[in-house]
């Protein structure tokens, strides 16, 4: 069956407004959801849950939140880490103060609390714009982390200054604490991600989303055609912080189990989520998921390859991928230059081969130390950020879309 919209007629506006206008996409989406809920829980072990799946889900929520604010409403925030801290500490205070409170309610209230803090720090956004606002959110980042670290009430006067999540269950199944099973943690997070991913999609396609995008694209014109700027920006801050707060609560409660503000919610965390949406795609729901997955998988993959080594089969796969990426990148650079154009193809193949060989030698047996892998990861992230901003500001989501556009016409070129 070809990937087509031909024959898939829309007879009403409702049908035209669907998230996935192409039938095949719809089936595939529901198949994926069914797989995630019904099959994955039986496959995962502790490593997969705690090193990959749960963090991907948690960061997806945070990325969705930041994407609403930055990708859709155009307000850059460097305070994501601090807002996650607000969610985490609210979650901690609520679970310890009201042990009977349902865990779902706790998480939602953590989001609500963060939304209020977000609104407070969003208030300046009416008067200050762009990177000025970014500096203002830095104030939130440093101030909040300092506050929760300094006032003992926030960590219940514990001697270490750490907060640790007590054991809580949901319908008799342990969700938090060291005894909770990976399946329970995974499903709990997945449920939140599924519901709030769907809500995010609804928000951005309707009145609220259009107001955000109008403010993002041209704030003055938006105000003149009737979009109230303060209300719109504050709603973006509120929803964004709500999501980030939930992510923070899950990050602390389910994923980490114990946290210390200056370690777990530093500015590094803010950048982590910002990078996720840049790489995944600014202003894209799919992109938030792709970006979060990418950001979680990158260090894991690099560590596996550079430190532990992955054996000849996977090393070959990585080498071929590196060869392709290097060759394509070099080719586009060479064709843009006047004096390299003539040798573009051999140059691209040469550089690609060199890079591929390098990757193979490293990946096949590993052996580098962890610090080196970390430094390489930082460099690579920086390079990727710049490359994505230059070539494709809409990120992985856009690349995915382009691939689908091509597929829609394939095998005919027009």
């Amino acid at each position, binding site marked *: 069956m070809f990937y087509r919209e031909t024959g898939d007629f829309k007879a009403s506006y409702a049908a035209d407004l669907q998230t996935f206008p192409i039938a095949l996409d719809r089936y595939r989406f529901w198949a994926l959801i069914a797989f995630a809920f019904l099959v994955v829980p039986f496959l995962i072990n502790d490593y997969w849950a705690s090193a990959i799946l749960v963090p991907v889900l948690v960061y997806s929520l945070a990325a969705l939140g930041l994407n609403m604010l930055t990708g859709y409403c*155009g307000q*850059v925030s460097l305070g994501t880490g601090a807002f996650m801290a607000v969610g985490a500490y609210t979650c901690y205070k609520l679970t310890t103060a009201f042990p009977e409170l349902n865990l779902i309610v706790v998480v939602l209230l953590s989001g609500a609390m963060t939304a209020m803090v977000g609104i407070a720090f969003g208030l*300046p956004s009416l*008067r*200050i714009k*762009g*990177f*000025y606002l*970014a*500096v*203002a959110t*830095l*104030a939130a980042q*440093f*101030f909040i*982390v*300092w506050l929760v670290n*300094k*006032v003992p009430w926030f960590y219940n006067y514990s001697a270490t200054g750490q907060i640790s999540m007590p054991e809580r269950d949901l319908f008799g199944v342990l969700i938090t604490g060291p005894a909770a099973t990976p399946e329970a943690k995974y499903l709990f997070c997945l449920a939140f991600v599924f519901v709030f991913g769907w809500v995010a999609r609804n928000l951005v396609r309707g009145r609220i989303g259009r107001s955000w995008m109008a403010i993002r694209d041209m704030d*003055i*014109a938006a105000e*003149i055609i009737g979009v109230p700027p303060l209300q719109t920006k504050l709603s973006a801050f509120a929803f964004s912080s709500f999501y980030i707060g939930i992510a923070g609560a899950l990050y602390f409660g389910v994923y980490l189990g114990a946290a210390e503000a200056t370690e777990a919610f530093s*500015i590094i965390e803010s*950048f982590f989520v*910002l990078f996720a949406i*840049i790489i995944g795609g600014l202003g894209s729901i799919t992109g938030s998921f792709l970006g979060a997955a990418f950001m979680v998988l990158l260090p894991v993959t690099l560590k596996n390859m550079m430190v532990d080594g992955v054996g000849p089969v996977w090393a070959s796969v990585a080498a071929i991928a590196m060869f392709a990426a290097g060759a394509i990148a070099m080719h586009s650079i060479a064709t843009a230059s006047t004096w390299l154009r003539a040798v573009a193809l051999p140059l691209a193949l040469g550089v690609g081969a060199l890079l591929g060989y390098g990757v193979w030698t490293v990946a096949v047996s590993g052996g580098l130390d962890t*610090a*080196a892998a970390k*430094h*390489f*990861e*930082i*460099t*690579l*992230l*920086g*390079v*990727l*950020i*710049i490359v994505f*901003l*230059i070539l494709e*500001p809409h990120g992985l989501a856009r690349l995915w879309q382009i691939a689908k556009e091509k597929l829609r016409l394939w095998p005919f070129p027009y």
Partner: protein
Amino acid sequence: MTDVIRRFNPMKAEGIALILLTLFLLRGAWWFTVADPRDAMFAVETIVSGLLAGVMYSLVALGFVLIFKSSGIFNYAQGVFALFAGLFASGFMNEFGLPVWAALLLTMLVMVIVAILVERFVLQHLVNQEPIILFMATIGLAYVLEGVGDTIWGSDVKVLDVGLPSGASDTLLDGFGLYVEKLEIAAAVIAAILVILLSVFSQYTRIGRALRAVADDHQAALSVGISLRTIWVIVWSIAGFVALVAGVMWGAKSGVQFSLSLIALKALPVLILGGFTSIPGAIIGGLIIGVGEKLAEIYLGTVMNELFGLNPSMFTAIENWFAYVLALAFLLFRPQGLFGDKIIERV
């Protein structure tokens, strides 16, 4: 400033906030001068060391202003620039055993190469992008520089001894009973010289004038035959040089380490105070932040205790956020900074 006074309206929220702030400050000042049981010398010491630290902030802020004026880019990586330069300087000296002058010269060469690479691989491709995209690109740049620096030299704390004097200044200690680090005085002197040099450079040299022309209007500058690319390389090299000086000073003081780039980030609130396009603004903003931070660190706890009965020990280690919150409060009243141009919006 006159503009602020003219617009002052005691009935508006801004006016009320301003009155409250003034009363608060007066109360603090009263307490500070009359009720303080401590030695007044200590306050002077605090202010002096604040001023000296402020000079360092000004220095990093200068790098920001230069780049912002000439290319409209808000260079987040400026702080990491200083770290990067510090890493190379200490690396050349400690690992290769080069003399100070050679190490600094080589590091400067590295910074010029970085400027050329940045122009070639980043700026050129982002010329007409939104400022905010450029800003995020410089965050990427910061990561690249940090990663490369760490990969080459490792991420442990490094000693950097470029022969600057250390210990307390004897003259001040004996003559006035003030304890001031010699290193801080040296840093302040060097920063001041640098600031004067830069002002002269941009005012009186051909390249300096071209630089200001580009700042005023890219298109017009291009049409009279100024090469934007060359200008950018020069400006980023100068910013690299400023970062080198800052990196060496800080490195000499507390070792070359990652936190250096975070300290340098404080140049951002400095700029908000001073305005993004003003060199004097960067200097004065730096001094205000430096002094304000030191004073707040020492006296805010006591003042808060005096006024609201709060536990004074809560208000320690506020250096992390004080500058940002001060800048945020300032932004609300005067978004263009002390010396920045007034923003008139158009459609």
